């Protein structure tokens, strides 16, 4: 009796493993774009602001640094912008909560589509260590560049793009130009 139960359990495990290695295909890009556009539109209509990402990371960094070196952060013009008047935590911020939601939304989508997996995304011709080094370096460039540009792909390109913001359109063209210009140099990582 117990062997039958065990075999049945093992079979369920096998079939579960099978669904796990076979992730669902991605959504049609135009449909996903339409959904994303409606999310952005609802942010405009409900909040009077668009989406963002890099701003939340600035608030988190400011908060962390403020807890170790308050005087240093208060004396710094960049951090003090995220610190506000000091009456509320920089973490009690709309973008910080939106990024928490972003994490939850990604988690939910990955789980229901069988795409959640501890793995490294890379091309076949690069080692994992090198890929992670480039991921860190690219993240660093993005963090720095996004602060210089007053926003990243979400806050500038997407949000400002839909609002026909002059700086956002210039920014967006430059992101594509920069990426295409350096793509050849980085081809070993992806192709």
């Amino acid at each position, binding site marked *: 009796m117990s062997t039958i139960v065990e075999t049945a359990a093992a079979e369920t495990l096998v079939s579960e493993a099978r669904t796990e290695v076979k992730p669902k295909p991605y959504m049609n890009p135009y449909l996903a774009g339409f959904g994303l556009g409606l999310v952005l539109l609802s942010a405009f209509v409900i909040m009077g602001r668009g989406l963002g990402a890099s701003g939340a990371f600035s608030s988190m960094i400011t908060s962390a640094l403020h807890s170790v070196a308050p005087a240093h952060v208060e004396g710094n013009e960049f951090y003090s912008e995220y610190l506000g008047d000091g009456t509320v935590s920089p973490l009690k911020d709309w973008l910080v909560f939106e990024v928490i939601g972003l*994490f939850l939304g990604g988690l939910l989508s990955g789980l229901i589509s069988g795409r959640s997996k501890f793995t490294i995304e890379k091309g076949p011709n690069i080692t994992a260590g090198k890929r992670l080094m480039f991921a860190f370096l690219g993240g660093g460039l993005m963090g720095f560049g996004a602060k210089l*540009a007053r926003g990243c792909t979400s806050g500038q390109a997407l949000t400002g793009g839909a609002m026909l913001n002059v700086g956002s359109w210039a920014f967006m063209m430059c992101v594509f130009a920069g990426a295409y210009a350096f793509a050849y140099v980085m081809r070993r990582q*992806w192709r």
Partner: protein
Amino acid sequence: MNAPFFKFEYFTPDFSLVIAILIGIGFGFFLEQAGFGSARKLAAQFYFRDMTVFKVMFTAIVTAMVGVFYLGWLGWLDISLIYLTPTYITPQVVGGLILGLGFVVGGYCPGTGMASLSTGRVDGMIYILGVFAGIFVFGESFSIWKDFYVSGKMGQITLYELTGIPYGVIMFLVILMAIGGFIGAEKVEKYFAKKDAEASK
């Protein structure tokens, strides 16, 4: 209907944080569904193999742009109350180029990096650590960049205000450009798929 609702105090600032989480969930969901949790899929855009980044981005921009325009035209949405990031053209051009480089090096942008992290991608996690590091470097060296950061100031300005071309006409041109881009993107994908298939023979 008076929108943006928050600006007309339909709910409290504390409640806006609940809205933030809900909107964020929608944001993350569609980024992941589009395939933006994968650096390989994102990076393929810049090798003309997979134009999903362009397709998703411009469909989203057109959708929200048309929505804002018509809700404004109907008098339901006060467009002037929607926050517009001020334009500082020089740091935005330079910042954009740095982001472009960072995109092909790191494989993500901050938003898609979060989507990849949430599905267990280790490179996405390391990437987000890098973003923190980059912001930290910028913050610590801010006195060096301060003058450049405020250069090329143009204020809060839209393309229709800058050019004097009516809002609806600019919108129409953007839609035309997007449709042209989509047709081009489909052709480019087919061309490279064929080329790659021939090369692997």
